[in-house]
């Protein structure tokens, strides 16, 4: 029984390692894509959207697979949900100050 569990565990880690290699290749390809897109000199709003979209995909791959967030416990998700909320508020503050209703500069 013990030997079988050890074999299963080793096979599990082997599977993980294959995923790490796949994610690594994907991250490399996406890095090249990011640089290639920037050479097209797109209009700023479109360039920002595309760059952030690719960065978000890359970041998600790192978080989900290298940081094992894809199979984490509920408490960690709760902590991160709270963090994501306050992070969004933090980034929204400068945007709101420049919108019509909240413009602070005279």
């Amino acid at each position: 029984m013990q030997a079988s569990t050890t074999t299963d565990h080793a096979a599990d880690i082997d599977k993980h390692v294959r995923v790490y290699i796949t994610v690594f290749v994907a991250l490399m390809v996406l890095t090249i894509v990011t640089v290639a897109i920037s050479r097209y000199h797109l209009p700023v709003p479109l360039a920002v959207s595309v760059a952030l979209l690719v960065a978000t995909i890359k970041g998600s791959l790192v978080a989900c697979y290298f940081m094992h967030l894809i199979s984490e416990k509920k408490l960690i998700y709760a902590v991160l949900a709270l963090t994501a909320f306050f992070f969004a508020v933090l980034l929204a503050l400068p945007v709101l100050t420049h919108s019509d209703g909240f413009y602070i500069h005279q």
Partner: protein
Amino acid sequence: MEIPYTVEVRRDTGLTNGKIGIWLFLASEVMLFGALFASYILIRTGAPTWPRGDSILNVPLATFNTIVLITSSVTMVMAWASLMRNRFSTFRLYMGATILLGGVFLVVKYFEYSHKFHDHLFPSTNNFLAIYFTLTGLHMLHVMGGMAVNAYFLGPGSKLWKTNPEWFTNRVEHSGLFWHFVDLVWIFLFPTLYLL
């Protein structure tokens, strides 16, 4: 007195205390970098003109550094996987590679900074350079911190492997989480500062 829940998981959370601790720390780090990203947005949207990063900064060097840091994330996770497979010598190889790649990143950054200073481009020169040096400088401090912790686990800290391998594996996993976070921050810094 022994530190509780280093190996065995708590029944209420299903996690070790170390795992919860490192994620709470990373949450605070998200807010730290978030504040600086918010400052970047505020400064950039309020500026009458803003330079494209590639007109001032060296994109090929930064692309190389992105590849270096992503590769170091893979070697870091492979170091942890080696411990999970009970292969300590392989762990040493991967951990050594991770530290070496961190060093390469810092050397490249040193050349980038030196070139800027040589051209009389300082944080006080303009808002773009101020936020560039602040964000990349803080990120570099994190790279140094991660390297120091990893070096400890490669050196004196690795003694724990002989007495409590599970605890050592958990500690390496936690330092890996920090290292991946440093990589994740760079993934966003690179396009924000260099390409837009």
